[in-house]
């Protein structure tokens, strides 16, 4: 038995310890937002945040996630109340078929939350481990740049308010 925190909730897992984190999330915790793409760490579709860092959940045996904080796409928002990043993907056309989207959102969220700059080059570098075969990336990059702009402005306003 191991314990880990998934989307801010303490969870217990009793099962084979060499099961992939991806499969534990989908099958044992019924969090099916996380998708499997290539199964070899190239495409990033299965990206979740492990202690805040994007990782490929298809390459992490759950035993190595013991005691960690895992965040999946379910932590961002729900259909009736999307997170700003999800809203931006919707408005800018950042999602098409949707298979890469959960992973794309998680990598982008780690970037935006970490105060990543709102320029397309930096966003492209941050998203280098996430492949999309539909959008041509333009719209995804635009979605992330837009959110980064807003989040960085929000942070700046808070910083100023504190300084006053």
């Amino acid at each position, binding site marked *: 038995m191991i314990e880990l925190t998934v989307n801010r909730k303490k969870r217990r897992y009793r*099962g*084979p*310890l*060499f*099961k*992939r984190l991806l499969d534990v999330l989908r099958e044992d915790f019924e969090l099916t937002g996380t998708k499997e793409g290539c*199964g*070899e*760490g*190239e495409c*990033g579709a299965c*990206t979740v945040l*492990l202690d805040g*860092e*994007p*990782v*490929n959940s*298809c*390459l*992490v*045996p759950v*035993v*190595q996630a*013991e005691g960690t904080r895992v965040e999946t796409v379910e932590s961002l928002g729900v259909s009736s109340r999307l997170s700003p990043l999800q809203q931006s993907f919707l408005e800018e056309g950042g999602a098409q078929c949707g298979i890469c989207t959960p992973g794309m959102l998680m*990598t982008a969220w780690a970037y935006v939350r970490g105060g990543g700059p709102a320029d397309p080059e930096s966003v492209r*570098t*941050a998203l*280098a*481990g*996430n492949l999309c075969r539909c959008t041509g990336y333009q719209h995804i990059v635009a979605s992330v740049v837009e959110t980064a702009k807003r989040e960085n402005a929000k942070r700046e306003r808070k910083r100023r308010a504190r300084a006053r």
Partner: protein
Amino acid sequence: MRGDTESMTLLRPRSVEEALRLYAANPGAVPLAGGTDFMVAWNAGEANGRTILDLSRLAPWKRIRLTKTGVRVGSLVTHRELQIHPLVRKRLPLLVEACATIGGGQIQARGTLGGNIANASPAGDTFPPLAVYEARVRLRTAGESRTLRFLDVFTGVKKTALAQGELIDSIEIDFPRRPARQSFRKVGTRAASAIAKTVAAGLLWLSADGRIREVRFALGSMAPTVRRLASVEALLAGKKPTSRLVEEAVDLLENDVSPIDDLRSTRAYRLEVSRNLLRAFLSPGLTR
């Protein structure tokens, strides 16, 4: 065919000493660091029935420590952690650049320096920088420890000099005196998630009179193991860098490597690009 969880035996040491004892008792076990290589094979169903020595709880091997002359990087330090360490960024920029080219960010966050070395791919991106920094690799068994020069760790494609029961403890890297020129270049099919066709690192120091005091140049993906260009380095040492000298050096490159045709590239292409990388490294500001 996929990985079969029920077929796996898992060993979960809590300390380095326990890990070394368990490894001695289970010499067939696969030491698992970040898993970015092993899990790919396992997902494909190619590693079922194995015993896994999970190293993820060995905290002492996850630290970067300062030494009198540089840093000692624990074998389980990730490529991501190396990229954000202020002193590593400042004094070992070639290693930082190499770490930033391994897979995408997700792979960099899990993959470890020790795992990369133990894996011994001819195309390991961190290897040319570690070769020119003349790193040392500290190995441990349950009973003893020894230190190898970085280049001596590799004995062939995916083969290392690690003995039975031996694990990588740390990688020691001295900070070099400030070079006049330094460069890391990786040539692959795309910027991220590509395996190198050729990968190069160079350091160069000049004397007060403008001569080359010392040059170190290493290539990966150009032989079964990473190579320092010994003939090129010997030719250049103590000489004024002229365009004729650079061409002589470029002609010598072939002596120190043995690239092959494979699915990623050809021998001819690898040689041509590597020569261009060496020329570009040596050329700026040379006297005609």
